[in-house]
């Protein structure tokens, strides 16, 4: 993967922004071409000609999130939420990529690795089926052109079939028709329970700030104590990162993988700053 330090970044980024901007107008129209989140991911990955296992995560994540915003609220909720699940996983992976290697090997990072592997496994699987569907299309198309003998039976032979035994009255027939016309609803299971509620980084940051200001020092473990939703834990960690960027806190970690102790160190902090916190994740 190309190194992404500052000096080489601007040029490709600019070019990219352009291409994305170009696509953006077309994308809204062609959104339906992407049949599901994996389709979109594959498309983004192939656009950058990247190997599926070495995806430049932040690039693809940013575009995926951008496209996700275009989905809008009028789309099928089920489908939109599938996109959200993938987006959340991508974000997790992006966050993991921002961290120094080997710093986190606790339950959370293991879960993150699992989520990443899962996403890759699903993508690979989806890609395999997508590829083989080309064979299906070709075979079906070829066979469509073939002509098999399917000729009605000769009257002579038809006459030799056993006489039909008919037992239905007209009323029976009507009942049968009711049965035949009853819509064959395929029972569906709602997907609603699969979708975690959206977590706001800003809201979580407010909690983190309150916790930090209320004590001399707080460990990250304490900050996420009681958080049941993985999304909340992720959001609180993201807000810690963001607050660090704003020099609002300092942290201390005596040994790798050791306890992460956080101290509030903001000199000029106003609660208004919360409003813009994590804005990067909106884009």
């Amino acid at each position, binding site marked *: 993967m190309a190194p992404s330090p500052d000096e080489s970044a601007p040029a490709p980024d600019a070019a990219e922004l352009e291409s994305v901007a170009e696509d953006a107008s077309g994308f809204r129209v062609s959104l339906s071409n992407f049949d599901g989140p994996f389709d979109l991911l594959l498309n983004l990955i192939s656009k950058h000609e990247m190997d599926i296992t070495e995806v430049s995560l932040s690039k693809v994540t940013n575009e995926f999130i951008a496209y996700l915003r275009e989905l809008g609220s009028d789309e099928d909720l089920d489908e939109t939420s599938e996109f959200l699940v993938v987006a959340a996983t991508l974000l997790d992976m992006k966050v993991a990529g921002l961290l120094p290697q080997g710093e986190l090997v606790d339950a959370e990072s293991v879960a993150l690795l699992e989520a990443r592997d899962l996403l890759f496994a699903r993508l690979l699987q989806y890609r395999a089926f997508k590829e083989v569907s080309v064979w299906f299309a070709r075979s079906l198309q070829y066979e469509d052109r073939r*002509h098999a*003998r*399917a*000729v*009605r*039976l*000769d009257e*002579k*032979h*038809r006459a*030799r*079939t*056993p*006489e*039909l*035994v*008919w*037992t*239905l*009255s*007209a*009323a029976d*027939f*009507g*009942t*049968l*028709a*009711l*049965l*035949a*016309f*009853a*819509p*064959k609803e395929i029972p569906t299971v709602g997907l609603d329970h699969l979708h975690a509620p959206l977590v706001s980084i800003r809201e979580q940051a407010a909690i983190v700030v309150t916790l930090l200001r209320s004590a001399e020092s707080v460990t990250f473990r304490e900050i996420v104590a009681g958080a049941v939703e993985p999304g909340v834990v992720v959001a609180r960690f993201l807000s810690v990162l963001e607050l660090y960027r704003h020099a609002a806190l300092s942290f201390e970690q005596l040994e790798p993988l050791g306890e992460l102790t956080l101290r509030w160190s903001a000199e000029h902090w106003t609660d208004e700053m919360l409003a813009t916190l994590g804005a990067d994740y909106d884009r």
Partner: protein
Amino acid sequence: MTDETMTDDAVAVELPLTEKLEAILLIIDEPHSLVSLAAAVGAPVPAVRQAIESLVDEYDGRGQGPRRGFELREVGGGWRLYVREDYDDLVADFVGGQAPARLSQAALETLAVIAYKQPVTRSQVASIRAVNVDSVVRTLLGRGLITELFQDSETGAINYGTTDALLQNLGINSLDELPPISPLLDDGSEGFDERIAR
């Protein structure tokens, strides 16, 4: 072979007339006249006549190969493949074994759909029943319970309807005497057609 014979057109012309005729004969239901066959294979009638005669001979075992279990016969001014008469009993036994005396539930339900929705195409029936109905429709046709009404001029789809034989079986005089089921018919099928169309 000259260069010319290597072009697509030339190769197509090279294909034997007898084989072309056999291809057409394999898929036709009704006897076709020499003129009609000639038009189908794009050859002059005398050549088609000659080719047909040689096929008749070959199938009857007067050519190089063995006799076939089918024959090419001229009936009512047209040509068609028929099972060789020697095998009529064999075929009758086979057909008898294949066709049970009672209609299956699937066949009865398909018949009901056709009875209430006629004229109706196979794909319309298939979408209402949410299953493929091709073989069931053939069975019902074979039993004379339904018939081909007309072909849609635009789509070419065949529309089916029920026959008097069904009315007799049901002991009624006209379709009007079928028990009414209209309310459900409208609700159920409408929404469904929309869904399946996607």
